[in-house]
């Protein structure tokens, strides 16, 4: 078991969305070399949980800590260590895949275009790097979003349904990336509806209404 000082720790978090009490005193801990697979029926707060963990959403009650420090008080250090990918790919349709990565990753750390091209190659998006993302398919956009997560070189990955729209080779690729990330000492929270066939330390969290 990991101590509370390393990794992500969510403690007794309550979130209301309007009249609905979505997260009711949820607590969880994910340490290094661990992947938390979050699943559950629609509308049970999986995305809300990830948004709380990312700091986008402040819980009405409870705390989220990273490496023992509340994420709200050390948000820039936390954000530098974290890569969040929502269920939409969050790409500008008028920019090329490479430009999208350059402007998104470039705010987190200094990167060269060559490095970004290599990362795009890794996720199988190399050939489409110079196309505006408006002409890409949903699966290709997902691969570009995945490349963005990879290029951020973050310790903590928060991925909301990263498997959606991916083809068989994409699913295999993502599983490989997740496994390498976790085995390399990373932390991951992944929302997915199907079982993850991964050869690493996977814990499962089932959310119910």
């Amino acid at each position, binding site marked *: 078991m990991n101590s509370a000082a390393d990794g992500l720790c969510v403690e007794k978090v309550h979130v209301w969305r309007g009249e609905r009490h979505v997260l009711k005193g949820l607590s969880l801990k994910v340490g290094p070399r661990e992947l938390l697979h979050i699943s559950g029926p629609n509308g049970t707060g999986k995305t809300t949980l990830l948004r709380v963990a990312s700091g986008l959403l402040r819980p009405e009650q409870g705390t989220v800590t990273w490496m023992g420090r509340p994420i709200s008080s050390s948000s820039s*250090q936390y954000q530098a260590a974290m890569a969040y990918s*929502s269920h939409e790919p*969050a790409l*500008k349709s008028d920019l090329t895949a490479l*430009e999208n990565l350059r*402007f998104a990753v*470039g*705010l987190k*750390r200094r990167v060269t275009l060559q490095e970004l091209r290599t990362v795009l190659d890794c996720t199988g998006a190399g050939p489409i790097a110079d196309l505006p993302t408006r002409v890409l398919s949903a699966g290709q956009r997902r691969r570009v979003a995945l490349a963005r997560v990879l290029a951020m070189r973050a310790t903590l990955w928060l991925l909301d349904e990263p498997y959606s729209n991916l083809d068989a080779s994409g699913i295999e690729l993502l599983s490989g990336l997740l496994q390498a990330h976790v085995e390399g000492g990373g932390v991951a929270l992944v929302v997915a509806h199907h079982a993850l066939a991964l050869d690493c330390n996977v814990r499962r969290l089932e959310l119910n209404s």
Partner: protein
Amino acid sequence: MTVGAWEAFVLIVRRELVLSFRRPEQLLQPLVFFLIVTTLFPLGLSLQLSLLRDISPGVLWTAALLSSLLSLDALFKSDADDGTLEQLSLSGQSLTLIVVAKTCAHWLVSGAALVVVSPIVATALGIPVAAFATMMLSLALGTLTLSWLGAIGAGLTIGLRRGNVLLSLIVLPLATPLLIFGAAATERAISGSSAVGAMYFLASVCVFTCTLAPLAATAALRITLE
């Protein structure tokens, strides 16, 4: 390896400029609106040149304010719609810096562009060349202030479906001092008297909004991001 504030600022401004130039129609729409509205007036009043001279500062400023409003709506909305605003806000850079960079870039493609084409409009309205410098400076100050006021309004109205109507209702009352003093400065410059008083007022309002509006716009954005 971390990215400094200035570097991040430049990167965001570049991003905004690249995005604007990929959509030239969005860039040109407010400018064309400005040109059309102001050139319609002389056509309608062609027989009374003296009347045209009298109303030209008001026409110029009203058209400038309304055309600036056209582009304000898109300031944060497109980024909020496609999810890139979330990515920006999680980039490790302060949200205020992001707001400042986006608003500056917005002013460059809307306000500054409007200032550049204003001599054409001024010629059509019969404003003497001697008054151009004052007119352009007053427009620059006014549009910059308006961009900042708009950033607050745009931040507040992101999540709304008919946000642009509400945005106009929020911004236009706040912009009336700009219209009054901007038009006054231009009018004084045309008549050859000193426009210093009105210009000082415009400049002070501009400094005031540049200082406080980033904080207000950031707070507005933070509320709507949740």
